[in-house]
């Protein structure tokens, strides 16, 4: 089979909708089949050949949606080289590995940092700055998806050497440091906006101390948001009642 410069039959919408039919049992299983089906259709498989391919695929899949292109690209390269059995083993292994790496790097590292950066931008500049940050993030992840697909296709089985876990751990750690610094600054910005300077200082200090303690309790024991809201209402009720009694 001839080698192409880029994988044929992989449309962007197939990669972007990997989680479209997500469910608790098969997770991204159907999304993966749909991503592969574009390639099979391009190769001109008839119904019987397509059936054989579909029955050979695992029914469930779970990987990181931003990084799935790497597994798909490597799989297609190996299939074109005639290494069908190895192609399946490599893509199955890559899916699991990329799921772990992506969860740590993207959901635990990048997204919380971007969130706190956007919060600061909203407070200092305004909503347009947040939308600008979102556009930059969306553009970067679109570029990453495309780049990883091409990189996986270019390298084939050698793509496994790209999964240098140390680098993603270092990146996550650096983002965490930046997030810790930024969250303190943004916290001060938010509280300075929330502070009612016209109120009586002692009563305000007492009220915010009680509310802050409640927030620490919620954070420490990872309480649900509804419990947080009910507790906040209770705190407000207690503070309101005390202020009436004291006045």
């Amino acid at each position, binding site marked *: 089979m001839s080698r192409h410069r880029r994988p044929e039959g992989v449309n962007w919408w197939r990669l*972007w*909708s990997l*989680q*479209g*039919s*997500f*469910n608790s049992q*098969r997770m991204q299983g*159907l999304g993966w089949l*749909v991503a592969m*089906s574009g390639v099979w259709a391009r190769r001109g498989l008839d*119904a019987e*050949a397509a059936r054989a*391919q*579909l*029955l050979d695929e695992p029914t469930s899949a779970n990987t990181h949606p931003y990084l799935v292109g790497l597994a798909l690209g490597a799989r297609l390269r190996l299939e074109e080289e005639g290494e069908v059995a190895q192609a399946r083993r490599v893509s199955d292994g890559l899916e699991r590995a990329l799921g772990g790496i992506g*969860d740590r790097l993207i*959901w635990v590292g990048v997204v*919380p940092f*971007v969130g706190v950066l956007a*919060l600061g931008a*909203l*407070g200092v500049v305004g*909503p*347009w700055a947040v*939308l600008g940050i*979102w556009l930059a*993030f*969306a553009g970067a992840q679109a570029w990453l998806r495309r780049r990883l697909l091409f990189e996986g296709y270019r390298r084939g089985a050698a793509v496994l050497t790209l999964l240098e876990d140390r680098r993603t751990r270092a990146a996550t750690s650096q983002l965490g440091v930046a997030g*810790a*610094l*930024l*969250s*303190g*600054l943004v916290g*001060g*910005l*938010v*509280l300075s*906006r*929330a*502070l009612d*300077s016209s109120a009586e200082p002692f009563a305000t200090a007492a*009220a915010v101390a009680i*509310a*802050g303690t409640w*927030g*620490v309790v*919620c*954070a*420490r024991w990872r309480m649900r*948001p509804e419990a*947080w*809201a009910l507790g*906040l*209402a209770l*705190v*407000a*009720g207690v*503070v309101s009642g005390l202020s009436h009694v004291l006045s």
Partner: protein
Amino acid sequence: VIGPAIFLGALAGLDRTAFGQTLFAHPLVVGSAALLFVGSSPDAFLLLAVLTCLDAPQIPVGPVRLRDWGSAAVVGVTLGTEASTPAGWALALLLGVGVAMVGGLSIRAVRNLALRAMPRVDRAIATGALAELEHIHLVLTALPALRGALVTAASLLVGRALFDRGLPAVAGASGEEFLSLIWRLAPWAALPVLCRLHWSRRRWIPAGLGALGGATLLALQLRGGWS
């Protein structure tokens, strides 16, 4: 602003997990987009900050129970801006928490629907019908957009009735004072949730520097040097 709000709810519903996951469904992003229609204000910033704090610990890994903070942000910002009183913003916040919960249940319902479609998927696999598989996948991908639009529309409807009847009923009474107090205290109770997420894992030096910077901003505000 109802039409744009529902449109934003649909886009956020689609983006949350089904298509793209570009962070458009983040409460700050979709809430900021809603602010372009209703107008920005310091109170809207505080509402989005509190919702962001509550959303932050949620990591969309595997079959985790998600909450719909995107719809909550759109509904909260829209109704809070219309009321534009401390009591109104408090009601918008409490309503937002409720919308996030109900939206989370609707996300589970959509995923259960996807699960129920799996026998059809198996039949399509057994016959090698690639077009049928794509059709099922595309329908299931579009469902979250419909879900987001419906949750946002229903929440705006219920929320507006609550605002129209509830706020005049408590005006000038202790209920209004109670709601205003909730609004004043909410950021203080929400920020520890965000800080714990970023300050864990023994990042003492950057966390300490960040806290020092935040405290400086607060001190400047207290001295009237920060606006």
